[in-house]
């Protein structure tokens, strides 16, 4: 098998990367894969139930991933990085050269593959494709996975399926790493489905209760619908490009050897996959339900890693999407539209959830929408940067919520939480950091990535911010509104969880170090992760610190990546977005921290009357009486309306229309199955068969009557038959 390794070919004129860790990056998924088997086989007999194997394996992967990253960075920095950097530093027209199709000394991905199967006398490979994107993903996945592993040793301690839990964590990690290092679309398909299965298994971890297994089924089936798109898309691209290789497919899309129609068809099919896997509108409903799984799982799979698989795939096959949707043609494309809608829908729905994890789930939907939106408008790096930062703060939030629920044995914010600030200081602090990061306030990581996306829409014509791949003003607006809503719903969560007075039972205690340490690590990362990609021309830091992420991750000057334009960062946009976010926070703050708290420390909503009375008839009166005009505006109009009718309507639509459609699809299939089976199969198809038998049988009975037992009737038959035969033959012949 070793001799089957096919040497990687340098793509385009770019320099091919090399290095031991890069070449052997398949080890990163091999460690956890082996760990999965080892845990299954020996886990139960080990003192810590197999978790030690998992932690060791993922740790090894992390180390390996880091080394790979270092090697990659040094490759990038070393190979023509200087000249490129010089150009980027100018901040505008950076990629003019690349746009001309000139491969200006970029570093192309390292690929290694073996023959996986031969079909039609053609070898189809499998292997690794290591570049900045892969390295970044390896880092994110292994890191979050490791932290979740550690966290879980406490969180699920004593669970009857402790060992299995870790086994599947390992399998998931392996699958995800396999997915992100895949060199062919076929492999991506494999990894894609494998993570889905792990998700299924982990969502349904507590399968004794039917809702959990229902949620697991729903997640899997919804994803399967998208997978259908992936399967078809991969097929189309295979025949379009003649290969499964990611590089080959991208090249074919970019150099026009694959027709635009085919490319578009492929992109559309893949988009379906993205919609289901990355929880985009209208197949997002499985994601909140998936919160039925253990919280660490939610953090790892449904926040940081698996759900971004769709985003990753778009990024990986960006050539296809870029050409297919003619991103940069400035017309609104499907990807951007879906992202935009999703981000709004998710943020709106996050308002009405009482389950802390469901808030976070909708928040994830919303943030994933951001990323897809970014990809849709051509802000490739921004999307991945947001993926990067989001992984940390969202994982932190989830783990934090887990820590809370660990203490109060519930996820219901209204019934069982409140005032946990004192009881759980570490959780509180880390949660706050992450929440602020999510809300996108400077200088935390969310700010940098969100801002970059907003700039990438190119819709901000004021004081810079142009020169993107077109002016997607609508996307910008959506992003802005979401920014406000994000701030607002996170404020609500924070209030309901940590402020006011405790509404639950018992006395909550802070979790142990195996929970808090990962929280702090993630909070730390949530704080600093943004620094890795200071915008160009940021001025406040040395130039060489600017755009490191972009530089390391985005493939530049290689034949398999489109020449995208990069937006110029804009101070004004950054300031406006912060203001918007603050406005959202402020509104929610007024509502909860001031008015709700004023009702009672244990209150979670204003009494019904207050909002109920906010009718037009009393408007004037209220304005006069209520000096807090802005307060009214904030609380009633913005928070009240958004949180009330709008979010409720959205939620109603969500539950009764979209989710219903999803569920109906299931029940209708079963009904169709029943009809087909009972009516068609048993009655018609089988009926025909059985009635043929019956007809033979009864015609046999009729013929049998001929056999009367009377010899002279026999004789008559004989004579008549002979006569008639003779007569007919004489006449006919």
């Amino acid at each position, binding site marked *: 098998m070793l001799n089957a390794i096919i040497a990687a070919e340098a793509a385009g004129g770019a320099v091919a990367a090399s290095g031991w860790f890069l070449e052997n990056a398949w080890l990163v998924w091999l460690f956890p894969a082996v760990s999965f088997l080892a845990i299954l086989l020996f886990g139960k007999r080990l003192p810590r139930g197999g978790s030690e194997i998992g932690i060791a394996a993922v740790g090894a992967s992390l180390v390996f991933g880091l080394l790979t990253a270092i090697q990659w960075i040094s490759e990038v920095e070393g190979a023509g990085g200087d000249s490129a950097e010089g150009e980027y530093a100018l901040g505008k027209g950076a990629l003019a050269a690349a746009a001309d199709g000139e491969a200006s000394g970029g570093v192309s991905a390292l690929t290694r593959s073996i023959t996986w199967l031969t079909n039609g006398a053609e070898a189809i490979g499998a292997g690794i494709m290591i570049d900045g994107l892969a390295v970044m993903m390896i880092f994110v996945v292994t890191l979050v996975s490791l932290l979740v592993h550690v966290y879980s040793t406490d969180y699920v301690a004593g669970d009857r399926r402790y060992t299995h839990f870790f086994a599947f964590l390992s399998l998931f990690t392996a699958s995800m790493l396999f997915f992100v290092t895949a060199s062919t679309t076929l492999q991506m398909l494999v990894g894609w489905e494998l993570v889905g299965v792990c998700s299924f298994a982990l969502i349904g971890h507590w399968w004794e209760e039917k809702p959990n297994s229902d949620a697991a089924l729903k997640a899997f089936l919804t994803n399967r619908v998208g997978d259908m798109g992936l399967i078809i898309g991969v097929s189309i691209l295979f025949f379009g490009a003649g290969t499964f290789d990611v590089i080959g497919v991208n090249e074919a899309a970019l150099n026009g050897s694959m027709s635009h129609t085919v490319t578009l068809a492929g992109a559309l099919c893949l988009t379906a996959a993205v919609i289901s896997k990355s929880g985009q509108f209208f197949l997002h409903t499985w994601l909140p339900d998936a919160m039925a799984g253990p919280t660490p799982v939610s953090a790892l799979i449904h926040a940081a890693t698996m759900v971004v698989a769709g985003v990753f795939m778009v990024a990986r096959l960006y050539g296809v999407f870029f050409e297919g949707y003619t991103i940069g043609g400035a017309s609104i494309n499907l990807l951007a539209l879906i992202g935009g809608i999703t981000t709004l829908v998710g943020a709106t729905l996050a308002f009405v959830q009482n389950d802390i994890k469901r808030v976070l789930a909708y928040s994830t939907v919303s943030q994933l929408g951001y990323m897809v939106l970014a990809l849709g408008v051509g802000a490739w790096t921004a999307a991945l940067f947001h993926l990067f930062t989001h992984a940390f703060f969202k994982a932190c939030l989830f783990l934090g919520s887990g820590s809370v629920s660990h203490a109060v044995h519930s996820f219901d914010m209204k019934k069982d939480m409140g005032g946990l600030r004192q009881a759980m200081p570490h959780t509180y602090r880390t949660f706050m950091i992450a929440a602020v990061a999510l809300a996108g306030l400077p200088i935390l990581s969310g700010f940098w990535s969100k801002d970059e996306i907003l700039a990438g829409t190119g819709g901000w014509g004021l004081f810079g911010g142009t020169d993107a791949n077109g002016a997607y003003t609508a996307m910008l607006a959506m992003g802005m509104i979401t920014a406000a809503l994000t701030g607002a719903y996170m404020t609500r969560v924070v209030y309901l969880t940590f402020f006011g007075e405790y509404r639950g039972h018992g006395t909550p205690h802070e979790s142990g170090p195996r929970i808090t340490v990962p929280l702090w690590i993630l909070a730390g990362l949530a704080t600093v992760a943004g620094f890795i990609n200071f915008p160009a021309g940021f001025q406040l830091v040395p130039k060489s610190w600017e755009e490191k992420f972009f530089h390391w991750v985005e493939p530049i000057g290689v034949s398999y990546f489109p020449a995208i334009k990069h937006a110029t960062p804009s101070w004004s946009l950054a300031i406006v977005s912060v203001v918007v976010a603050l406005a959202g926070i402020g509104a929610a703050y007024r509502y909860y921290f001031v008015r709700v708290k004023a009702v009672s420390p244990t209150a979670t909503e204003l009494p019904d009357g207050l909002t109920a009375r906010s009718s037009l008839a009393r408007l004037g009166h209220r304005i006069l009486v209520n000096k807090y005009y802005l307060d009214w505006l904030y609380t009633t109009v913005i928070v009240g309306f958004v949180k009330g009718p709008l979010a409720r309507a959205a939620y109603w639509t969500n539950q009764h229309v979209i989710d219903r459609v999803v569920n109906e699809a299931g029940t209708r299939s079963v009904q169709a199955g029943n009809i087909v089976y009972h009516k068609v199969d048993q009655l018609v198809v089988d009926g025909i068969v059985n009635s043929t038998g019956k007809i033979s049988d009864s015609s046999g009975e009729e013929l049998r009557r001929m056999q*009367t*037992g*009377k*010899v*002279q009737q026999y*004789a008559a038959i004989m*004579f008549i038959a002979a006569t008639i035969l003779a007569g007919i033959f004489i006449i006919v012949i």
Partner: protein
Amino acid sequence: MLLNEMLLLGAVLFCIGVYGVLARRNGVLVLMSIELILNAVNINLIAFGAFHHTVIGQIFALFVITVAAAEVGIGLAIVLLLYRNRRSIDLEQVDLMKG
């Protein structure tokens, strides 16, 4: 003499015989009807023998006569056997086995 005179007589006898075997219930009467049929055949054979002027017709007829005699013999034996067991030779009642 016309060949057809003989042949048509044979045909008529044959058919009368056929009627007989179908319409008669008595076993012995049926056997008699059979003799009519066989004689019709013999008429044919002899007529054709004369027509072709060959003795083969006669020889064939002789064989038929001989065999017919044997058949009548055993036919009657079987009818007798039947009679002995059932006290009747009504063929209509011989229908123990059917279907």
